[in-house]
């Protein structure tokens, strides 16, 4: 027998309280019909005996104590899935909004997912070639990794994400057709969502994209469901349909703020900056859904994008994200202002999984040594710059001046590249060696001699013969 419960006992923010409810289960979905005929959905978030607290996804506007009929659905939130979801557009709660009708489900899956058994995980080792020098060389993206972009408002994170999605190449044979993108927009403006859609369309991949859109004017509580729906779709495609899925989630900061709003309306004790104490666990329950599992061909790779309020990397959202994800790509405001695209701040960026996915058999044997050396040398550039800002460039020692020169070239030629420029890993690595050749060989203390002889020496000689002056002009031609 299906019972409708008439009216509610209490309304508080997005929460309604019902009393005398029998047989409800925790986190069950309820349908709420208003007297005007409109339907809303909610989820049970707290229970005490027959008193239940329901979170209404669409918000409580228009609900009064007497104008609703609530019906229990008997199930937790599930997403209907089939291979047809490719090319479709859904709202943040997983309902189609592209006018193409409902999904005829092959399977329904709980959007909360289940944790992957660590024993069943395959340690990710295959790299994804993104065609972006800084990422491929210094923070290589690995299939099954979660690598967020830490950005700020107004920086070109969206362009970078699109470029990665467009250029990402999986290096195995025969997996080209198996690649798809799941895109989750949380609290971004319509323009941004439209930019992503248009870019996917232009590069001809739109039929391989599933979009979940919760734009900035959509209900906030629905936002807490959006990444879960997207990841459930991604897991389905990856582990049931054997596809390689790249999940782009933007903007995680809006997601966390939605969670904060929900938490405070429930009256929970706030943690840092008002975010709930379980923000870490909650973010982890999203990010940890990346990976590969034994016996399945597919993979889920995540690129969450988050804007750091006030460019502050110690803000709880980027901070906790950094502790969960396997590295981060940090964008830098001053590089962005000086016109460098992509404005990747090299030193704080990192990929934790790259060490086992690069080198001989994956990329090239000198990769690890080169990236080490580039990081170390670029760190010295920073020292030289801070010294120069105190005592002036003129007073620097000759070697420090060389570092300044190297830093300039590195940013203009290596970090900077065109939004449509797709560099192969070979090109990127060679470019790295070439730039290092503006430093004397004795400064390259992270590389052993065999590698230096093989990869560095060709550039070293070329550079030694003419005077130092012609390096910048050479660079000028290449920077776009």
């Amino acid at each position: 027998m299906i019972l409708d419960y008439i009216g509610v006992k209490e309304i508080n923010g997005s929460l309604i309280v019902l009393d005398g409810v029998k047989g409800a289960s925790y986190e069950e979905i309820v349908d709420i019909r208003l007297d005007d005929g409109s339907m809303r959905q909610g989820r049970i978030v707290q229970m005490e005996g027959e008193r239940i607290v329901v979170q209404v996804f669409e918000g409580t506007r228009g609900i009064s104590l007497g104008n609703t009929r609530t019906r229990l659905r008997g199930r937790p939130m599930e997403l209907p899935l089939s291979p047809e979801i490719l090319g479709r557009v859904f709202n943040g709660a997983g309902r189609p909004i592209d006018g193409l009708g409902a999904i005829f489900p092959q399977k329904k899956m709980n959007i909360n997912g289940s944790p992957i058994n660590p024993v069943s995980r395959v340690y990710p080792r295959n790299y994804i070639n993104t065609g972006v020098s800084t990422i491929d060389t210094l923070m290589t993206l690995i299939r099954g990794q979660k690598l967020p972009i830490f950005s700020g408002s107004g920086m070109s994170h969206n362009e970078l994400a699109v470029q990665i999605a467009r250029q990402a190449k999986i290096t195995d044979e025969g997996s080209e057709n198996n690649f798809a993108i799941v895109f989750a927009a949380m609290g971004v403006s319509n323009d941004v969502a439209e930019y992503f859609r248009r870019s996917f369309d232009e590069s001809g991949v739109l039929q391989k994209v599933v979009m979940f859109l919760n734009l900035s004017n959509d209900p906030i509580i629905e936002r807490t469901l959006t990444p879960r729906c997207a990841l459930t779709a991604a897991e389905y495609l990856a582990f049931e349909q054997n596809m390689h899925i790249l999940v782009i989630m933007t903007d995680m900061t809006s997601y966390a703020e939605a969670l904060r709003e929900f938490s405070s309306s429930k009256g929970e004790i706030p943690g840092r900056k008002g975010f709930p104490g379980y923000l870490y666990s909650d973010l982890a329950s999203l990010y940890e859904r990346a990976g590969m599992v034994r016996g399945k061909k597919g993979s889920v790779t995540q690129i969450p994008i988050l804007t750091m309020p006030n460019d502050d990397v110690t803000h709880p959202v980027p901070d906790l994200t950094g502790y969960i994800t396997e590295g981060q790509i940090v964008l830098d405001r001053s590089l962005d202002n000086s016109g460098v695209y992509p404005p990747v701040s090299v030193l704080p960026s990192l990929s934790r999984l790259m060490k086992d996915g690069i080198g001989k058999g994956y990329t090239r044997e000198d990769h690890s040594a080169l990236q080490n050396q580039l990081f170390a040398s670029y760190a010295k550039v920073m020292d030289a710059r801070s010294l120069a800002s105190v005592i002036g460039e003129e007073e620097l020692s000759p070697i420090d001046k060389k570092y300044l020169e190297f830093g300039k070239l590195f940013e203009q030629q290596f970090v900077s590249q065109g939004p449509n420029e797709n560099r192969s890993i070979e090109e990127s690595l060679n470019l790295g060696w070439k730039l290092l050749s503006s430093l004397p060989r004795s400064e390259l203390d992270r590389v052993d001699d065999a590698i230096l002889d093989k990869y560095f020496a060709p550039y070293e000689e070329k550079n030694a013969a003419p005077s130092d002056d012609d390096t910048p002009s050479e660079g000028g031609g290449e920077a776009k």
Partner: protein
Amino acid sequence: MQNQDIIYGINGPVVTVKNSRTFSMMEMVYVGKERLVGEIIGITDQLTTIQVYEETTGLRPGEPVYGTGSPMNVTLGPGILDNIFDGIERPLKAIAEESNSSFIDRGSNVSSLDEERLWDVTLTVKEGDQLKGGDIYAECPETAIIKHKCMVPPNLSGTVVKVAPNGKYKSVDEVVTLQDAKGTLHSLTLCQKWPIRVPRPVVKRRQPVVPLITGQRVIDTLFPIAKGGTAAIPGGFGTGKTMTQHQLAKWCDADIIIYVGCGERGNEMSQVLDEFAELIDPKSGRPMTDRTVLIANTSNMPVAAREASIYTGITLAEYYRDMGYHVAMMADSTSRWAEALREISGRLEEMPAEEGFPAYLPSRLAEFYERAGFVDTLNGNEGSISIIGAVSPQGSDFSEPVTQNTKRFTRCFWALDKALAYARHYPAINWTSSYSEYFNDLDPWYAKNVGEDFIKYRKRINSILQEENQLMEIVKLIGSDVLPDDQKLVIEIARVIRVGFLQQNAFHPDDTFVPLEKQKLMMKVILHLYKKARQLISASVPISGIIESGLFDKLVKMKYDIPNNKPEMFDDYIDEINKTLEAIVNA
């Protein structure tokens, strides 16, 4: 017989039971029809509060709660090693096989240890023997290198009335029957249960005087840890906490490694599984997994089990310590554990103290770290537990409560530094803000086993680094060119120490583990160059000449150029330094 009640309220992992007098504090219970594991954490006359170790989605008020009558405990017996458990000792491999799924479902009811496996047991007692708690009554090879010793539970003693013959037994088979003073018979199998929140008793704690040798130069030389000691590794994300923990787990000279991945990444756990299976222990020629236990509560696994995972880990560690082994426990990361405490505390609506953490955070941390130590066990062996806990401070700010409180209860502090990590200086242990309080305890051991020089060299190295630190303040303001030559030399030699000695490459076959003898000789060569160069400079030889000789760069690469098994090559270095410098003087 079962004491039973029904669910009243549900809020995340916290479930309440109304008007119940059934359960006792810290009792383990099964919640709901799916029998989810939980623990009683609060009792008032109206509400009993249960923390549930699994997802509570789908539970209904009115479903049953079953009591077990005993506190949250783990099963101790053969089969623990070479295994991977979740936070409450459920075997993840067996769960994966049984459920035939890559995901963890709820309510899996798989026993902790493989009860079907046969062990080759040798009984070490005979009828009529008097046994007290902790005494060993049987032994079996648990893996190729570790012999498992079955011990009488600490709270039991009596006379052996029946002994099974040597042979193959399952872990639940009775092998010895014990009659206590009251005449009650107790059957002893190969395994026993122990509550995770209660430390296992020992006879006496000893002063730790033996170092835990890690093969990592910055640790062994500058900030050593004793066997039975405690260390904290704080560091922001990306500074290499996990990497350092992995290196220590792989190379430290403990017999047993307990690695607790507490709220960390799933991919990291699979990396540990892969790497440890491939890594061959140099001493025994067997894979590392033969002496390792992994406890994995990845960050998306239930938060309540995260709180328990640390206790599960330390209880397993104590069990092996009691057999007379030296155990090293890595906890990565204790901040996640503290956050789990905070999360549960918040759900219980307790009054928060600093930054929302409960007021009992320091006492919980202290309780945990105090379970480390070098002890005389009940059966007359000696064993130790060293705890190395990673701390992930919020916003890399070391003044937050978890770091500060951990600092109070650990005696080594290996502070990881963001700037070093950015420059890819690994291990990124900052030599000015880190410390070890074990110097005085360990110096006699170093003097006896590595030589008095070792201590002397260490002090020199330390003072050069301190001196460099002060000079760098000046350099940052006015550049290094203005310094007099003797100070330039300090900076140059400190660079050799930093790059050539403190920095260590975990991926280099020789450099990943360096024996103490080589560490000492490396210091010796570096200090020799320093001494000679200083003599030259005081004789007004310009430093540029010494730098151009390439000696400094050569010493930087010494760690790669000299294999670990050829210490005699260091003499060639000393000769070369002497000759090269002489040539400079004569020129």
